[in-house]
């Protein structure tokens, strides 16, 4: 995959297609992007980004208002005075600490187990894909990518409640297992690019397959671990339908589920509800702001090969 910066020397013409009549100059031969800054494209991109930013702005200002202010305006006015108590109210009414803890436990658990299991399975498959058994397993797991969740949903709920897995532990198990198909797909492509000679050298030195995996392969998989970790983290944190059908105890509620459950109780109490939404979205958003480049390159790496 190419990086943004060094292959940035790209089709100004395409931009013209977007911005109609932008600059006519041609760029030079060098690798660096010698095109002149395209101000039309910059302006267009900036204006369009408002569609992303406005809902976030709305979420923040509504969460800081008093109910009176909200009924008077459209919602977009700046809050005056600011009512911080909305957050305190939401904290108590949605049992925020409990939901946050549940979501964090499920997310962290899923990411850790996913990284440990998917990489091992993918390694065994990638190194033996020419053997019928492993090839069969590979396609068996891959075929699951075509199976939509609704077909599993109804029987799964029976199964998890019979097994006593209608709780956080069950969610971790389900995310780990259901992520397997996609993760193996991501990992095997990468493992095949690791020269087998590396392992053979270690094998000659008497290392076992497990040892080779942990000390040679796993460290080399770090870029893919990041990719799989990010995808799993975003999925487990934001998922709604699986917690909705699987979790039965109110004490096991995740953040998304808590918003859904309390939606009815908030009724028209929008300011407190919005404070609650913000608190539910904030943890991942904050992590993203500080690791933005890393997250995007991780997700891209998983998608493009």
């Amino acid at each position, binding site marked *: 995959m190419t990086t943004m910066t060094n292959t940035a020397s790209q089709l100004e013409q395409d931009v013209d297609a*977007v911005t109609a009549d932008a600059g006519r100059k041609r760029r030079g031969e060098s690798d660096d992007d010698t095109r002149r800054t395209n101000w039309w494209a910059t302006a267009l991109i900036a204006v369009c980004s408002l569609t992303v930013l406005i809902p976030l702005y709305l979420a923040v200002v509504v969460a800081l208002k008093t109910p009176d202010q909200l009924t008077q305006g459209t919602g977009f006015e700046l809050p005056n005075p600011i009512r911080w108590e909305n957050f305190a109210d939401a904290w108590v009414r949605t049992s925020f600490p409990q939901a946050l803890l549940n979501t964090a436990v499920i997310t962290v658990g899923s990411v850790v187990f996913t990284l440990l299991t998917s990489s091992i399975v993918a390694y065994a498959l990638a190194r033996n894909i020419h053997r019928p058994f492993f090839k069969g397993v590979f396609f068996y797991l891959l075929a699951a990518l075509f199976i939509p969740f609704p077909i599993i949903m109804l029987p799964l709920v029976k199964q998890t409640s019979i097994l006593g897995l209608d709780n956080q532990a069950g969610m971790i198990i389900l995310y780990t297992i259901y992520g397997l198909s996609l993760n193996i797909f991501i990992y095997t492509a990468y493992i095949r690019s690791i020269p087998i000679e590396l392992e053979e050298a270690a094998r000659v030195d008497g290392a076992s397959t497990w040892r080779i995996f942990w000390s040679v392969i796993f460290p080399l998989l770090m870029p893919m671990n990041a990719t799989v970790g990010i995808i799993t983290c975003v999925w487990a944190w934001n998922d709604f*339908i699986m917690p909705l059908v699987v979790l039965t105890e109110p004490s096991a509620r995740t953040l998304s589920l808590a*918003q859904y459950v309390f939606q009815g109780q908030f009724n028209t109490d929008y300011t407190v509800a919005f404070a609650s939404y913000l608190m*539910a979205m904030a943890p991942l958003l904050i992590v*993203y702001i500080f690791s933005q480049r890393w997250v995007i390159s991780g997700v891209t790496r998983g998608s493009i090969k």
Partner: protein
Amino acid sequence: MATLTEAVRSTPAGSARKRATRTRNDSSRAPATYYWMVWPAVIAFAAFHTLPVVVGIFFSFTNYAGYGAWNFVGLSNYLNLFRDDRVLQAYGFSFLFAIVATILTNAFSLAIALGLNAKIKARNFWRGVYFVPYILAILVIGYVFQFFFSNSLPKILSGIPLFRDNILTSETWAWTAIVALAVWQACAFAIIIYLSGLQTIPAELYEASSLDGASPWRQFRSITFPLIGAFFTINVVLSLKGFLQVFDPIVALTNGGPGTSTESVTLLIFRGGFSGGEFAYQTANAVIFFIVITVVSLFQFRVLQRREADF
């Protein structure tokens, strides 16, 4: 989703063959350790993924309500599905929604990706901004959209009756609001895919074609679009598949209403199966849904792959 572009270009079987020629000791049995690495995962996967699928297919031939006794009823669940107006309406809605949302997602994200790929100021910052929806829970941000449609928009656009009366309560147009929310989020991922596709195109192609006097639109049509064909395929297939199963945005905005006008297949299966006492009936519906999605995805791959170019 990920790495599917590889599958689009070369079949896994092809790369497996390549691998086999490079690996030594082809004929010998793999060390036992490899089997130990795979078996637990296979068993767990069979128990929590394949088993529910099989159980679901089994019960689709019964009249099980989700509790109590049941009998085999043969194919009658399947036959009844085709006569059930609510089911047909859910399929109609899901397809309308998915097709419109797929077209809009791909059009917008390709345009934004072209813009981000141009030489613009603070490119990484903007790229980061456009990716934000990907990391937000669509249900939660959906509630913000719900407030916007039902409380802000009626006041801002009070001159337009459709918006003044809250578009979410319009039986004819509520689905467009759901499309807006779903596209808003789906674009984040699609933009990133298109952007990486655009960066694989050699700049020389544009230089050569501009010497020949090709217009920007002509260049887009003859160079850019054919060369990002694989990325277009993957984006269209993935978005259509995802949009057909739409659930969260509907729950956040209309909850299927008004009436059942925005009830998707997934929402119908969820409601009928869990609270409507239609366990068997809705699993039959899910089996049909699975077949529909698979056929649609494979059909798309065939049609779209034929249009791709390589360099």
